């Protein structure tokens, strides 16, 4: 099949724009595959693996656009290339000639908005650190959405922020809600008196959504990115955020979310928490209760519990009533699992979880390890359970598609569903797979059309009725995608649908247990 391409020198587009154009172009007549990428080394190696690295691409630079098209005939490919150029120029020209001046740098943006107070950075990691440092030197708070920021740069940014008392959320901070504003990937939540600091991106989305869905509200939700809790960074961002929530009169309850912090960070947390009388909920996924208790905080084992405990403290409702609900639900969970287990075809026995959200993958991994034992993963709890190849599942497997091996050179899986859709179809073909578990994180910044982009794949998998597809939707009714409609569409497509990850995971775990027994 012929592959043709062009290099557009110095034509820079962000990865989301390119994804959208590529998506439209794949729908063109007789076109098999379309790649639109900036000419970075990583992107070139991606093209190489898909046999689309043309000779003329080899000398391309980071800011050259590579367009490659594979199709039925030379003629169709040529036609598609022309169409792609049209699609690209449509975006640019309308922006340039009709709209007002668009600044090209932070300095010039500051001339237009001299009272800006926060800079949201999502450029490629190797440039994000410098942009952040520039912003901090100008006295601005920053959120760095980008990952792959060089370590030294990231630390320097955090140190400058710490010295200046400025908030440095990230790198690799997927989400935050400041003064009600959705930053990065985030959900539209009720405002209220619960303040969150989270070193876990989708953890923050899950907790803030459940809080909002259950009568609570958020004052501020500060993300720090997972790496912040490592010794190297010493929790600098986490501590700045925590201190601000302690001093914030609008915040009555403080909720902390993270993987287990290091000893050094724990000690600093303890010292800081001594200075407040506000009730604090600690959800350190995978840590022992005693770690949280030692800080003088209330432990929550799951994200769901952290959310419900926070709401009970905020509303003055005894936590026991939530606890009771969760305990009583164990019976419901068993019943739901029994019904589902009956539907599984003989001989199918494995769990396969394909996640958009890192924290959600991690939480499911913790719960299932307790219930089922060995869980293989590209982000395993123990090194011995690391997948030999992230692209191939083994036995019970959990894959975090937000990890580097899947995101380099393409949009985050919360935006671009293509990669996971392919993987879902592959898993369904495996005759030993009993249950495919999927998260769907909605909200601002994420894919706006999950019904169009996600549901058809579910339909395809469920139509022969051999595999259970379970989907947990993280989000609120106020999110722009219409959560209710999505949940209905997923159910209509034959999926089992929940909106709390811990709950859904427990049902899934029980199904697998029942089949195995």
């Amino acid at each position, binding site marked *: 099949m012929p592959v043709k391409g062009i290099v557009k020198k110095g034509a820079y587009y962000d990865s989301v724009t390119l994804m959208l154009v590529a998506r439209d172009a794949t729908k063109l007549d007789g076109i098999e595959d379309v790649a639109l990428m900036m000419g970075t080394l990583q992107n070139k190696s991606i093209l190489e693996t898909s046999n689309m690295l043309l000779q003329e691409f080899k000398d391309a630079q980071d800011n050259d656009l590579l367009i490659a098209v594979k199709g039925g005939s030379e003629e169709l490919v040529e036609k598609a290339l022309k169409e792609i150029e049209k699609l690209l120029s449509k975006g640019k020209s309308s922006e340039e000639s009709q709209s007002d001046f668009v600044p*090209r740098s932070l300095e010039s943006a500051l*001339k237009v*908005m001299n009272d*800006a107070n926060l800079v*949201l950075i999502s*450029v490629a990691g190797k440039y994000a650190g410098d*942009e952040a440092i520039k912003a901090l030197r100008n006295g601005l708070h920053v959120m760095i*959405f980008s990952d792959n920021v060089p370590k030294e740069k990231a630390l320097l940014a955090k140190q400058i922020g710490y010295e200046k008392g400025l908030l440095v959320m990230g790198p690799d901070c997927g989400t935050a809600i400041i003064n009600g504003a959705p930053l990065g990937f985030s959900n539209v939540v009720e405002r209220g008196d619960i303040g969150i600091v989270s070193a876990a991106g989708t953890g923050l989305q899950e907790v803030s959504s459940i809080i909002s869905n259950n009568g609570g509200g958020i004052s501020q939700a500060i993300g720090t990115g997972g790496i912040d809790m490592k010794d190297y960074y010493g929790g600098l961002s986490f501590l700045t955020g925590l201190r601000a929530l302690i001093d914030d009169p609008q915040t009555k309850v403080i909720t902390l979310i993270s993987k287990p912090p290091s000893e050094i960070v724990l000690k600093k947390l303890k010292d800081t928490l001594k200075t407040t009388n506000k009730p604090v909920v600690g959800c350190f996924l995978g840590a022992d209760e005693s770690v949280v208790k030692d800080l003088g905080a209330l432990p929550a084992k799951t994200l769901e519990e952290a959310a419900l405990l926070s709401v009970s403290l905020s509303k003055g409702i005894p936590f026991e009533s939530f606890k009771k609900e969760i305990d009583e639900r164990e019976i419901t969970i068993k019943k739901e699992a029994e019904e589902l287990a009956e539907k599984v075809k003989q001989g199918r026995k494995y769990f396969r979880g394909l996640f958009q959200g890192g924290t959600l993958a991690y939480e499911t991994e913790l719960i299932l390890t307790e219930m089922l034992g060995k869980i293989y993963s590209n982000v395993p709890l123990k090194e011995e359970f690391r997948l030999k190849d992230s692209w191939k599942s083994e036995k019970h497997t959990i894959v975090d598609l937000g990890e580097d091996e899947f995101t380099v050179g393409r949009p985050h899986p919360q935006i671009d569903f293509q990669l996971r859709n392919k993987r879902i179809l592959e898993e369904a073909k495996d005759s030993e797979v009993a249950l495919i578990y999927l998260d769907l994180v909605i909200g*601002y910044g994420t894919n706006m059309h999950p019904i169009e982009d996600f549901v058809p794949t579910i339909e395809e998998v469920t139509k022969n009725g051999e595999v259970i597809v379970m989907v947990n939707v993280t989000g609120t009714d106020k999110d722009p995608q219409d959560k209710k409609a999505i949940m209905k569409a997923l159910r209509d497509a034959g999926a089992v649908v929940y909106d709390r990850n811990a709950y859904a995971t427990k049902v899934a775990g029980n199904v697998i247990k029942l089949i195995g027994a």
Partner: protein
Amino acid sequence: MSKVNELFNNELKVINIGLKAFAESLKLTGYKVINVDWNPPAYGEEIESAFEKFNEIVLNKKVDVESANKEAFQRLINSRPKIVGMGKAIDLIPNMKKNMLLHAGPPISWDRMCGPMRGAVIGAILYEGWAKTEDEAERLAASGEIEFSPCHHHQATGPMAGVYSPSMPVFELVNETYGNKAYTNMNEGLGKVLRMGAFSPDVISRLKWMESELYPVLARAIEYLGSIDLKNIFAQALHMGDEGHNRNRAGTSLLFRQLAPAIVKTTNDPDAVERVLKFIDGNDHFFLNLSMSAAKVSLDAARNIEGSTMVVVMARNGTDFGIQVSGLGDTWFTVPAEVPPNALYFPGFTKDDANPDIGDSSITETAGWGGFAIASAPAIVQFTGGTPMEAVNKTKLMYEITIGENNTYQIPYLNFRGTPTGIDIKLVVEKGIPPFIDTGIAHKKPGIGQVGAGLVDAPIEVFKKAFLAFVQKYS
């Protein structure tokens, strides 16, 4: 209150750098946000490591780049150019020789000269009477008996081919603030003219008339006036729709108003007065050479400031595009000149007829007017089928690569914001934004003249070269 708590208590105002979708989310939910059209820096490893070295220079305070640039910029904008007199090139221009021809752009030998510049050289030889025919003139030019030297080496600037010969009359300008001087010839008009490479008998006889009648009339008027303040004229011209490069209608008119009474007063022959006033009135570009010279005399005051990354010359000879940088002395950095891609051609001509970019007139952009002030001159964006909004955006873009804003030269449409002034090579390379230049276009063959006008980006490679040299010098 901590700064984070201040943030909680104030209205959130976000600058978004990266995924546009994030800015749209904020807009949709009613928050204030500005999206930055961010581009990755367009450079490879060599420039990347140069930036690291540059940061070391700044960090180790080997040289204070910031204050050097402030100094260069202040000198540029504090300059006050005035016309103080006229004379012959050979008498006034420093180091001008009897067998010398000046030309536009960086240094160039006869064998590398482009068509229009060769045409202008032939014309100048015929004008001086050093040869009788085109062939003779060409042979003489190639013989080595004539010394070629860039205008810029003699405090002069020449539009297009920019050829000066010893007996041509020139204006003398002085920078009242700093005392340095500059020189420029008189503008011949449009179409078939020497500066575009034309040398037919009518071209030569016009030059002869300029020498024999225009020059003495103007010289007497200027002597009578004492001096003419070009800073005032240009500041007003900007408010009247000029940008001092491709549009000089207001500048020429304002100059005319100053000259006319003095000409009437100092020249007794009413026919000569009429011819001179008609000539100036009939040539909208009469002010161009003075605008360029005013830019030159202002920029020369900012030369040789240790540690400054400010550009003091951008110039083209039709073969090469060259720049000079304040902190790098008299060194030229050059790359091949390009044919302007966005241009409008006179009927009968196309891009195939065009010579690569030529002329010293980009000195106006170097000083912060011309293309940099195009928001002031919406009338000329039609040259390329552009819109006034595009002109405004072009000027706004130039603020990204300049050190500051002029305190006298202002753009009414931008709320009287000063023109973007003082090109910083570091910013050009870092942001990948080339300076923007208005330009005329000459036919690539000698003897034909102007074929169009248009807009062109300065080649970014030449700024990279200069930046590498800067880092090497100061490391």
